[in-house]
C-alpha cells in the first residue's frame, strides 16, 4: 500500500502523481468530536509542511499541514455538511483533500504504517 504518515499525524495515499490526504485515526481520537473542517479549494498550491486545512473539534482548532508539495485538485466537500466523518472514518471517507504531487521525492522522509504505529506508541 502506498500510504505514508507524518509526525503531524497526517496520512497520504499516493496513486501515481496523485495523492489523497487526511488525518490519522490517532489524530481524530486526540481531537475529540470534530465540528468543523476547512479544506483547500482546487488549484490551491500547497508546500510540504505548510498550512493546508483547518480542523476544529470541541476542544481545539488545529492546522493540517501538507505532507508534500503540490497543487490541490479537490477538497472533500462532504466534510462541510458532515465533519464527523473525520471521527467515524478518518482514514477513508473522512479524507481532507486530493493533490497532484510536484516532487514525489518528498515522500522519502515520511513514515510507513509500521513506523507510524511505533511512533504513536512512543507518544
Amino acid at each position: 500500500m502506498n500510504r505514508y504518515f507524518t509526525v503531524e499525524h497526517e496520512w497520504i495515499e499516493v496513486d501515481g502523481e496523485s495523492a489523497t490526504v487526511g488525518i490519522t485515526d490517532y489524530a481524530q481520537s486526540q481531537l475529540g468530536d470534530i465540528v468543523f473542517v476547512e479544506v483547500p479549494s482546487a488549484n490551491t498550491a500547497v508546500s510540504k509542511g505548510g498550512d493546508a486545512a483547518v480542523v476544529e473539534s470541541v476542544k481545539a482548532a488545529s492546522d493540517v499541514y501538507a505532507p508534500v508539495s503540490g497543487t490541490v485538485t479537490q477538497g472533500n466537500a462532504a466534510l462541510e455538511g458532515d465533519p464527523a466523518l473525520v471521527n467515524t472514518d478518518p482514514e477513508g471517507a473522512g479524507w481532507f483533500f486530493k493533490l497532484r504531487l510536484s516532487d514525489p521525492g518528498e515522500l522519502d522522509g515520511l513514515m510507513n504504517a509500521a513506523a507510524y504505529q511505533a511512533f504513536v506508541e512512543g507518544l
Partner: protein
Amino acid sequence: MRYLPLTQPDRTAMLAAIGATNIDDLFVDVPIEARLTAAIAELPLHQSEMAVERHFSALARQNMAASHHPFFLGAGAYKHHIPASVDHLIQRGEFLTAYTPYQPEIAQGTLQMLFEFQTQVARLFGCDVANASMYDGSTACWEAVGMAGRISKRKKALISSGLHPHYVSVCKTMAKYTGDTLDTALPCFEATDSARLIDMIDSETSCVVVQYPDILGRIEDMTAMAAKCHEAGALLIAVVTEPVALGALKSPGEMGADIVVGEGQSIGVGLQFGGPYVGLFACKEKFVRQMPGRLCGETIDAEGKRGFVLTLSTREQHIRREKATSNICTNSGLCALAFSIHMTLLGECGLRELAHINHATACAAANRLAEIPGVSVINEHFFNEFTLKLPTEARPVVRALADRKILGGVSLGRLYPDNGELERGLVVAVTEVVTPDDVEAFATALQEILS
C-alpha cells in the same frame, strides 16, 4: 475618605524588610543626571480636594458643552436624547461591567444581554449574525477589511471617498502592517464615486467599503455595487456611523452587503468626549467563522433549559493564538448594554418614530439654511445630516458661530485640510434634540456672519 493610608511606621517597616534605609535607596539605579534636583517649576504643589475641585470646575466651565447651546455637530458622533432609564439600568450591579465575561457561562444574565444586543444589531443591519461588539466604528471597519481579505484571499480594498476620513486613517494604520492595499480618494460635492468604484472592481479586489449615509450625509442604493462585487468574488462592506438612520432607510444587508459595521454610539451612548464607544459588526452567516470578536450563542443545557454560551471561540486568540481572526478578545460591554437597553425601550415602532422626527427636523433645518444667500445644500438625499456649501471657507465661520454660542457643524476643512473647494463645506447634523429656536438662531447667526 483616605486615599493614602500608608503611615510612616508602615513605610519604615517595609524598608526594613527589604534592607533599605530610606526611600532614596530604591532609586539608586536611576542615573543622577536623570533625577530631579528640585520641584518642577510652575507646577503647583499638592492642594486640597476642595481646591482641586474648584480649579477644575472653573476649567470645565470654559468648555461649550453640547447640551448648553444649539448643537449641530455630527460627522460620526451624534447627540441624541438618552432616556434617564438607560443610565439607571446600566448601573445596576447585575449589569455594571465594562468587560467581556472571561468565565462566561456563570454569567448567564450578561450573556443573555449580549445575545439580545446581537439580535438587535443583526436585525438593524439586515444581516444573519452580529457579534458582541467591537471597540468602535473605525476599528470595526478595519476588522471588516481584514476579514474580507481572509475570505477572498486578496489584498486590495477599494475605499469609497464617502468613508469618514478618521476611519480611513485607522485602516491605513493597520494596512501598513498587513500589506493590504487601500485605494482611497477625496470626496467631492458634485457626486459620490460609486460609479468609479464599480468600474474598478476586478479579480484582485477583496472588498469595497461604502459608508451609508456617507460622510457628507448622502444616501445611495448599494444593490448594483453588491452585484458587481459578487460577480468579481469581492465582498461589499457597508459602514453605518448613524444607526438611527436605519429606522428610516433600507438596511445594507437587504441591499446585498456581505459585512455591515458601524458605530453604535448614537443609540444609548453619550458623546463622552469621543469615547468609549461601541463598534457594531454583522455579516452573512456563511462568513461567521472568519468574523472577529466575541460571539454569544443560544443553546440548551443538560436539563433542556434555554441557556447562553460564548461560541465559535476557536476563531479567537486565546485558542487560535497568532492565527486568530483578530487580536480583539473583548467587547464594549457597558456601551453595548446601553445600546441594547435604549433599543429595547424604543422598540421597532419607537426607532422608526425617532428616525422620522430626526429626518423631519433635519429637512426643516436644511430648508431654512438654504434660504441664506450664497448657501446651498449639496445633498439630493439625506437622513439627519447634510452638507452646506458656503460662499467662503467654513472653518472660520464655525469659529465665529462658536463665539455666538452656536456649535454649527463640522467644517470639511477640519476633516480634509488644504483641499481646495472642500474647505467651503460644512457638515450639519440635526437630531431630535434640536428645536426650531435652535435652527432659527443658527440660521440668523450664519446669515450675519456671511453678510
